[in-house]
């Protein structure tokens, strides 16, 4: 037999043999997750211990995950898409990557403004973005709303994270939803005027700079403060609930939806329902110091210590719809 024939035969064997070996099994649930591995692995492991169902997952940024789902089309292995920020979930739904889920359990466990009106995705943890300040140099009575951080008294005292981060894009999107583009742009411009330093790469840097005295007030997600305080309880940074006299603190979610071409949609829904349940919610949020979405679950004691607060009741899906406008607005306002 010539070498060529042997080679052809080998190719044939591979082409026929591989597919047979790769025929899918139904039991496992496959998850694409933009939530970090060290936060999500314990949750999935607990689920497997409890139900025996294997959860297979891969982590990446949201953009590549959505693109991956799209390119794979109906042959994707993913049953569940898990990501942070409602904007990303909204886009996934918009691109037709998710399917509606009719579940009484999810409807009962998750408040209406934290899930998709069409039931394509569901919030699983709540993230509040609010004001932090230096208790040494700021009297909390001086603070009131996000918009008020643009007032002249905060000139050279405000610190922000970069506008590249989706958390700030969603915050500005909510400002647009409430006050319209023009007024929102005025507010963002006034923030930029008040900056004490160029915007930082992350929320931790904002709070460390407040502690070091580079600025006095900033806007961050509460769980970053929770994690910093866990490691360094004496950090001179305190939390203020913004907009309590008005519509409430801007909240966002990390959440999930069942993919349109899921092979195991029942398994995905069961996992989703379990993650929203009382038993799992603390598991899901404690490691990251977030708030549970399920209102009957009490948050971690460190988080509960910040006291109750009024949430902005606008559906978080609006953040997705208005994200493009928000980014353009921040670019125009010179918020880097």
């Amino acid at each position: 037999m010539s070498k060529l024939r042997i080679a052809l035969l080998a190719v044939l064997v591979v082409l026929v043999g591989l597919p047979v070996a790769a025929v899918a099994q139904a039991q496992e649930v496959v998850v694409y997750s933009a939530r970090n591995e060290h936060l999500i692995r314990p949750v999935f492991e607990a689920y497997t211990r409890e139900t025996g169902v294997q959860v297979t997952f891969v982590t990446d940024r949201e953009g590549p995950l959505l693109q991956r789902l799209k390119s794979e089309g109906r042959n994707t292995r993913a049953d569940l898409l898990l990501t942070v920020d409602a904007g990303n979930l909204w886009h996934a739904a918009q691109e037709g990557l998710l399917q509606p889920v009719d579940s009484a359990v999810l409807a009962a466990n998750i408040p209406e403004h934290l899930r998709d009106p069409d039931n394509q995705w569901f919030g699983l943890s709540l993230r509040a973005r609010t004001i932090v300040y230096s208790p040494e140099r700021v009297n909390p009575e001086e603070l009131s709303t996000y918009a008020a951080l643009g007032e002249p008294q905060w000139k050279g005292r405000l610190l922000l994270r970069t506008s590249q981060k989706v958390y700030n894009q969603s915050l500005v999107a909510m400002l647009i939803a409430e006050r319209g583009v023009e007024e929102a742009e005025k507010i963002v411009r006034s923030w930029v005027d008040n900056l004490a330093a160029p915007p930082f790469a992350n929320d931790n840097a904002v709070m460390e700079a407040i502690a070091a005295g580079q600025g006095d007030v900033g806007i961050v997600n509460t769980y970053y403060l929770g994690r910093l305080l866990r490691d360094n309880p004496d950090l001179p940074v305190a939390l203020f609930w913004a907009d309590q006299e008005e519509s409430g603190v801007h909240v966002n979610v990390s959440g999930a939806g069942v993919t349109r071409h899921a092979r195991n949609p029942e398994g995905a829904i069961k996992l989703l329902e379990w993650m929203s349940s009382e038993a799992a919610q603390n598991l899901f949020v404690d490691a990251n110091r977030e708030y549970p979405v399920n209102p009957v679950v009490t948050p971690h004691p460190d988080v509960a210590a910040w006291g109750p607060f009024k949430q902005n009741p606008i559906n978080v899906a609006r953040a997705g719809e208005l994200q493009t406008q928000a980014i353009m607005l921040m670019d125009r306002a010179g918020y880097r």
Partner: protein
Amino acid sequence: MSDNKVSPTSIGPRRAPVKGVRTGPFQLRFWDGWRLFTLAVALLVLVSLGVVCFSWLTPPAEIWQHLRQTLLARLLLNTLWLVLGVGVLTLVLGVSLAWLTATCEFPGRRFFSWSLLLPLAMPTYVLAFVFVGLLDFAGPVQTLWREWFGRAAWFPPIRSTPGVIIVMSLALYPYVYLLAKNAFQTQGRRAMEAAESLGCGSWEGFFRVALPMARPWIAGGVLLALMEALADFGAVSIFNYETFTTAIYKAWFGFFSLTTAAQLASLLVLLVFILIVVEQRLRARRRFSTARSSAHITRLTLRGWRAWAAAGFAGAVLLIAFGIPVFQLGVWTLSSFAAEFNVRYFALLGRSVALGLGAAVLICSTALVLSYAARRHSDTFTHGLVRVANLGYALPGAVLAVGIFIPMAALDNLLINFGETLFGWRLRPLLQGTVIIMLLAYLVRFLAPGFKPVDGAMHRVTPSIDEAARLSGLRGVALLGRIHLPMLRGGLLTAATIVFVDVMKEMPITLMTRPFGWETLAVKIFELTAEGEWERAALPAVALVVAGLVPIILFMRHSER
């Protein structure tokens, strides 16, 4: 290329015309194995780039309008500063250090000669977060500064254009250093001695003789550093410095327009293509021929203050680019070790090393074949293919990852649908999430840093060497094994070292193409730094640096002999 007749050397300086010469069992036909292989590699790269460039089939969206009105001017200016700054600084650092360690004798030369390469193991994003952590307002240095000189004392801001340029250059100068040192060592002191005998001082000799002779290698090194700087996302986002890459990410992750992102990225490809052509113009029409092995070097012994200045300079660069960052990472690692370390780290390390090794073998052999192909076929077509094959390094990793992923997913879908309609199988994707795909993706991305040193070494194999070997009866595999490989060994080792370290550091492609549950050290660093947990990221960063050091030290030992 129009000057084909004048200079058949459009890829490298000493490309010999081998038309009509028959080496080994292969006949020089138009479609011989060399050229077919080159075509295959170029096609692989072209398909990935094609996905990016075909974005122009969709007309530019309103996002373009917006970017043009608000950001584009600043982005271009920032990118220009970055290219200029990193270009000049890596050139100055790399060439001066290479010159000192290759041709001069001063205290500590042997040590610096290999240790100056260590920063190669330090990913740019790691160096960035270390320096921002150390030198920003809240960091220990400025805190101490304020304690000494009062709150209002001025301190140069690290998050600034000079800050980005300096930090990035410290991470990237080893590319220039490595290639330039190779060149200086090869030319030896002979040329300089000749120049001095003609009345040139040592400064003049350096600028008029040694530097021009080493130009192709230096240009190659700077080009690698610039491509790396243009494609970088991790470091610039830590500095919140807006470049072309950050705009690409904004278009994609912010505006959810992969089309706009790809359009921007294709402009970047164009820019790099221009850089490559300029680099080749710089080298063209020159023939360099002296080839002396490093054993023949007699070094110029520096004395007095010169000796100490040389040692001080090399020491300072090493300290800033490697010593201080490693110390800081060590401190962070100690504080987070108990919380962060577990047995899984060995698996992460193992996968990183395995990927690096696999990619190094694949890319070095590919680079070797391409280099031979370009040597055998001195026509524009083959050289064009080789040039295209090198373009993948220019693209930001995430964009390239998409460019690779989309066609592979399409192929998978084809196979799956085929299996279903023909045999009724319900299949899993066969290609996605396999290590083969990862390796092919790395090949597309890292062929350039592998090809440059191999191709550089290939220039030393002059046609007269082949002739001589053939006269003594060596041909085919024997010629390759007994004459070529020993001469190419240095270049191959350089290439393998760079690729191994680069692949271990790489994040976006690894994230997107890896099999389920396949974490590596770089993935771990990504997960932790994405949420600003720099201290916890120190442990995987240290592991990555240490794993990268081993081949670098082995390689330098080898080349020092």
